[in-house]
């Protein structure tokens, strides 16, 4: 029977993580990271992931102050965590726009060597000029060429990992370097859900994240990816699908549902709802009551400010039509934001309920596992390891011991 593969995605920023909890573990302290990975290793997780965001989020030109913020350099942090763990995979999200290919390939290979084959690279293409303001050549890459650069970058990195001298001289990738850490094979993860992202995944990735936790969508997504794999001559079993998922556990279904409602409400506080609308209005809305109606003033003419780094591309245009639609809802500011920017937890229930559901997902190959986004630290991670993992093991869909030592072995990848 196929086994579920589990990871935890430690994003480090955003409204997901509830910092108002009295037992909130300081999410930037090394001790919190160590405690988290050790708990996950006890729970036989495949991997621990760090996100990437190379500019602190802002709202109307000021640092955005309502969410957790602050994160380490991923590869540095994972190298430290490699010294504290034996088995768990260590995955760094790193972009292909604001890194030098040979430099990044070298640091990833170094992590792989020093961790005994436990490194992974979650490939992202973050190409916006706003993030680029922190780099030598900000905004150099045209958005529509980001996956072309990523493809050449990844291909060059693979060549360097194999060893020897690698030379590339195109308008997107230009260097000559000799491998300093030959013979490594970091596991490649890819998250983009666009056509270009799926294609990059089918060509190069060992694992994809997706946003598709809904069963029917997950099935359709898996079918699409397996078709693309075949077109690159890869077997259907050469890629793992691990959607990002948030999980809320309760002792009873009613308790879990109540907890999920509470979390959703906490994630959209009044100040956050106002800040969300400020991105669209382009104006200071702090004087408005979050529980009152939408602002009576008109939004500015300009398009959306990308500086939160969170607005999907399809939301960056047509804001006036969108706002007109929101007004027709007739809801309060906070209710409007909860409705148009929902933060539903993906799986809510008792450990037994969720284990049953996940067993169905994995035995029908809709997914190969999940990448869990914690809402509470350390609570979410401890609950999943102590309550959900035993239920999964009981159903025969989760390992009872690590069999291999490398991330590639954990994921049963070729």
């Amino acid at each position: 029977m196929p086994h579920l593969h589990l990871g935890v995605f430690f994003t480090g920023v955003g409204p997901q993580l509830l910092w108002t909890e009295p037992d909130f573990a300081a999410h930037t302290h090394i001790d919190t990271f160590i405690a988290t990975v050790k708990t996950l290793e006890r729970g036989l997780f495949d991997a621990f992931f760090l996100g990437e965001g190379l500019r602190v989020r802002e709202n109307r030109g000021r640092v955005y102050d309502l969410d957790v913020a602050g994160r380490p350099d991923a590869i540095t942090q994972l190298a430290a965590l490699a010294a504290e763990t034996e088995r768990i995979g260590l995955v760094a999200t790193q972009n292909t726009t604001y890194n030098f290919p040979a430099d990044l390939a070298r640091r990833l290979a170094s992590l792989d060597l020093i961790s005994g084959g436990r490194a992974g690279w979650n490939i992202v293409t973050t190409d916006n000029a706003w993030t680029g303001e922190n780099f030598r050549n900000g905004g150099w890459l045209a958005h529509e060429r980001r996956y072309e650069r990523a493809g050449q970058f990844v291909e060059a990195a693979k060549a360097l990992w194999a060893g020897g001298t690698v030379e590339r001289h195109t308008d997107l990738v230009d260097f000559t370097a000799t491998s300093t850490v030959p013979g490594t094979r970091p596991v490649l993860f890819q998250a983009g859900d666009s056509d270009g992202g799926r294609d990059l995944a089918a060509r190069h990735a060992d694992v994809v994240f997706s946003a598709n936790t809904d069963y029917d969508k997950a099935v359709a997504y898996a079918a699409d990816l397996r078709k693309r794999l075949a077109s690159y001559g890869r077997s259907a079993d050469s890629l793992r699908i691990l959607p990002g998922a948030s999980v809320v556990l309760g002792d009873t279904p009613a308790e879990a549902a109540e907890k999920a409602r509470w979390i959703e409400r906490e994630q959209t506080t009044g100040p956050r709802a106002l800040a969300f609308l400020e991105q669209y209005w382009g104006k200071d809305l702090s004087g408005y009551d979050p529980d009152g109606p939408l602002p009576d003033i008109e939004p500015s003419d300009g398009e959306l400010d990308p500086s939160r780094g969170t607005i999907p591309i399809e939301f960056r245009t047509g804001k006036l039509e969108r706002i007109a639609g929101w007004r027709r809802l007739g809801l309060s500011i906070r209710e409007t934001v909860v409705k148009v920017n929902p933060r539903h937890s993906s799986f809510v229930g008792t450990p037994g309920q969720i284990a049953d559901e996940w067993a169905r997902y994995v035995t029908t190959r809709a997914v190969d596992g999940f990448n869990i986004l914690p809402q509470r630290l350390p609570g979410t991670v401890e609950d999943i390891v102590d309550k959900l993992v035993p239920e999964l093991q009981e159903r025969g869909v989760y390992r009872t011991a690590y069999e291999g030592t490398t991330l590639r072995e954990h994921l049963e990848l070729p």
Partner: protein
Amino acid sequence: MFLAVEIDGAGAKPEAAARAAEAAGFALVTLADSPLPPPGGGSRVEAGVRAAFLARRTSRIGLAPTLHVTVTEPFHLATQLASLDHASLGRAGWVIGADNSAAALATIGGRPLTADGLRREVADVVDVARKLWDSWEDDAVIRDTGTGRFLDADRVHHVNYSGARFSITGPLITPRPPQGQVVVLGADTLGITGRLDVALVAAPALDEIADRAHQARTDGAPLVFAELDLSLGEDRPAGAEQPAGTDRSGGLDAVTSWGAPERLRYAGGEDGLRGLLDRLGGIVDGVRVHPTELDVDLPRLIAVTGPAPAGGPTLRETLGLARPVNQFATAR
């Protein structure tokens, strides 16, 4: 006198050397690096990765990787070092690397800089790293449940830095390092001595070291370390033959010069080394030792220097350097 040892020769697993140096009370280990493979072949794990791993296998000793300003992004460099400081709870240092060879620059598709251009680039990267390390004030995280604010946005700053070849808006993605500022070590020949915490002086003879140490202090370096190549033991070959008339060691006949950069070199027995270290103690604050063979020379060196009290807990405290006031906090 502070002791540092370069442990690049330890390959991918430098843990034993770092722990031995820590047990002997050394102030720090340094980890040399290059974007090019070792001349003799084999692997060279990136120094920041090695240092981060060591951060969790040691508890008192300073850890200073070499990061080259020429072949990386300054923002990544500052983030890496801040993260190393967090992971080690305040033991990070940075040995400024400025590899300007054609082969190194080719790894990023670049060309070597002019001498002036290189000096300016080093200064810019150091300046922006220091600004970025200060871009979060120590008390930026407020977790104020009353107002729903996690951060005090007035205490997280754009740095708006414009250098000759790059500009950076900031702030850093990482909160201020535990030491406030990572300890910055660099050669006195980089032309930025006033920006250093520790100036590293490589010269073949004691009188030249003394002159340059004096100059480095005049230029504003709080501490000066001499660089010393070491082959310790009567059984060790003297290495490169000493050219005639180059004995500038003031009578220590075992002190000879060898290839560039011309560091002070000692090849000989323990007593001679004791004498040399005593004399160095009169002119510099510390010595960074470059063992010819780490596995042989480090244990012998430790036998000579004997156990010293553990420093720490931070590298700044070990070195007697104050935790710097945040430049943005003072500007407010």
